[in-house]
Structure formats: structure tokens, C-alpha cells
């Protein structure tokens, strides 16, 4: 879990160019981290690439925070 969390946070920091301390699990990509709708599409692609999982569009629509992403990927991998 913590490994997944770290890797998710690393991707978010790199893609959105935000400071590490802002990337908490409750942080919303759009409201807190300055992403727009295209950024979130790219983030989901990056998660898929990093973790070798497929995140269908309807599931992607529910991934709004860093914590959502960690949870989704953890359950998809288990």
C-alpha cells in the first residue's frame, strides 16, 4: 500500500509540477493541485502505465483525489 501510495504521489508531483507536501491523500487533483480535465486524463494514463492496470473511463471519472487513485490501484492489483 505504501509503495503504491509513494508511486502515485511521485507521478502526481511530476505531472502536475506541484510541491510534494501538497500531495496528500485528500488532495483533489482539480481543486487543490491545479489540474484541468486534460491533466486528469493524462494522470490516469500515467497510472495505467506505471501499475500495468486498465482504468476504464467510468472508473476514471470517480478518481478525484490522490487517495481515490491509491485505493483504486490497490484494489485493482489485489
Amino acid at each position: 500500500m505504501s509503495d503504491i501510495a509513494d508511486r502515485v504521489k511521485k507521478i502526481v508531483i511530476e505531472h502536475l509540477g506541484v510541491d510534494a507536501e501538497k500531495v496528500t491523500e485528500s488532495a483533489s487533483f482539480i481543486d487543490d493541485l491545479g489540474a484541468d480535465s486534460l491533466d486528469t486524463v493524462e494522470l490516469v494514463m500515467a497510472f495505467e502505465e506505471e501499475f500495468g492496470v486498465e482504468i476504464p473511463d467510468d472508473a476514471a471519472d470517480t478518481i478525484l483525489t490522490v487517495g481515490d487513485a491509491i485505493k483504486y490501484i490497490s484494489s485493482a492489483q489485489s
Partner: protein
Amino acid sequence: MRRVVITGTGVVSPLGCGTEITWSRLIGGQNGASRVTAFDVSDIPAQIACSVPTDPSVEGAFNPDDWMEPKEQRKVDKFILFGVAAADMALKDAGWNPQSREDQIATGVMIGSGVGGLEGIVEAGYTLRDKGPRRVSPFFIPGRLINLISGQVSIRHGLRGPNHAVVTACSTGAHAIGDAARLIALGDAEVMVAGGAEAAICRIGLAGFAACKALSTAYNDTPERASRPYDRDRDGFVMGEGAAIVVLEELEHALARGANIIAEVSGYGLSGDAYHITAPSEDGDGAYRCMQMALKRAGITPAEIDYINAHGTSTMADTIELGAVERLVGEAADGISMSSTKSSIGHLLGAAGAMEAVFSALAIRDNVAPPTLNLDNPEVETTIDLVPKVARKRKIDVALSNSFGFGGTNASLVLKRFQHQ
């Protein structure tokens, strides 16, 4: 029609980042060509280019981080980055930063590119082939579209007026300035940010233009000698990259805010060759009619032309243009200096016409004609001064700038020293 003047310029060029550093190096006879080392060219016949300097140890190098955050840079092709940077410079130079909604609506953008984001298209193609459509970035399309320079500039500066983009190959920059000036003249805008940007120095760009037999291939070991317009030993153009943007402004608008007027855009001509996809018509008819239209619009005679910034790509077409100019100016030829600044910075394709319009404006400002480098042995005799090798101080009140593109699309601009009356 209302009069239109240039009140700001911004340049990213193979000679450096900034109008003045580029201009002083151009006048000083510097050459921007070098062997391409950024990617493998061993299997491409043309192995040289005029690249924008990015090595921080070089004075005047272009630093992308000065213009766009790294995370935003990933989302745009280099031609957009160059265009955005040059537009930022031009608006700053003009001192125009519209804040009121009325001023924002009065300010438009018309910046084009010849070929746009070739490299990014190739990369996305590889991604599509190797990883499938789900891996194609959402920024692939908005990072490659040619009108996204105009879009980005509008968004960054809050410019809500006409938002347009020109795509006419190597005439793009001149058409953008001419068309934007016309929008102002007709009252559709008070200010236009206009010009062109290009960044096609990549494997597919060199391979594609080399396949057209357009590029120099004989000077891979002496790149600074390769771009040699009018010289009998020329063998093709050298690809350049960069961006040139001007701020165009309605005269009264510029005067009312005390703007620094660099030159007036007084004439604009356009024509089509109706001849061939890459070669100009051999009689130079398209070029001739284009220049003639620009002079007519400017209300001047050929004898009033002091300087011509030629299209002069260092290809066989140089002599066709020269012939068309001779036909146009007749006996006035002896009073005219005509040079090709592509001998210094290469051919910036969609940015070339805008870059050369900036150079023409500065030639008027400083009364100096930039040189045609490498002109050792002119292929044909002419009484027109081709400004070989060294810049020439001379009176320049009126300049004509020519651009001709694939498809047989031609544009000429007449710039004049600004005078009241």
C-alpha cells in the same frame, strides 16, 4: 483605410533569444548554422541546420523555463513554445498589456506556422503503434495544432479579439502580418499580435525537405558556408527554426498611448503561381504580381524602394526572384539594396516572413541593410546591390519584404519609416 504601425517585436532565432541580440549579430555577419547533433542525421543527406541556441553558456541562449513552466512545456510542441516566447517579448516591447475588457477585445492574435508540430506527430504515431490508442496523450492534439500559438497567446495575455492562424508554408509569417494589418485597417481590431513560429529541425523534417531536394547537402562539413543565396555554388536551403512576432497597432491608437513606432506597414500583396507544388513559376510571374500589388497598396513607385529583404532561400529559385525584382523596378535597380538574411539564419519556413519583416523594420530604424553572407560569385550579374558579406549603412525609408511558399503562395510587405501627415 486606417493606418497600421509596428510598435513591438519579439524574436527567437538561431542567432539568439531577443530582437536586439539577433539584429546586432545579423548586422555583424554572424552565421547560425551548425552540424545537427541533437539527433541522428547519419542517414539523412542534409546534416546541418540553424538551430536556436539553448546552451546556457552561450550569451542570448533560449531557456524554455524563462517562458513556460516545465509541466506546461511537456504539453506543447517546440514551435508553440517559441511563438509564445516571442509574443511575450513583443507585447512587452510594445508596452501593451491590456487589462480592461474593452482593450482585451480590441486586441487579437494571428500567429501561424508552416508545418507545425512534426516531431510530436511522429512520436504520437510511435505511441499509437507500439502502445495503442489508450496511450495517446490528451495533449497530443492541442500541443500540435498550428493555431494553438494564437490560442496560447490569447489565454496568457487575455487577448479577446480576432484569434486566427495562417498556414501558407514559407509565406506564413508575411501573410500573418499582412492579414493582421488588414484586420486593423478594416476596424476589426485596434492591436494585433502577428507573426510566425517554426521548429521543424527533427529527423522527419530534415528527411522530408531533403526528399523534396530543397536542402543543401554539399556543405555538411562547413555548415556556415551552406546558405549562400545568389551564389553560383548554392545547392539548397538550410533549415532554421525560431519565431518572430510583431505588435501591430492602429496609428491613432499607438499615438494616443505614446507608443514607440518602429515602422509603418503600408503595403501588402498576395498572389498564387498556379504552377507547381514546390517550384516557383520560371518566369517569376507570381512574385512579380505580388510585389506589384504591395507597391500599389502602399502608393509608391519602384524608385522609392530602398531595401528589399529577399525570399532568397539559396536555391535555384533565387535567380527567378531576382529576375522578377529587376522587371518590377526597371531603371530604379541601381538605387536598391537587396539581401537575403537566410544566409545568416537559414530558412525559418513559417517564421521566415515575420522574421524578415522584423529585419526590414529594423533596417529602416537603423538605416542599415543586413548582408548576404557567402556571396562569393554571384550567379547572374545585376545592378541591384546584393549587399555581399558585409552590412551596408545607407538611407532606408522604404523596405519591401518577400516571401514565397510551397503551393505557389506569395506574399510581399511594404514597410515605411513612420511619418505624420
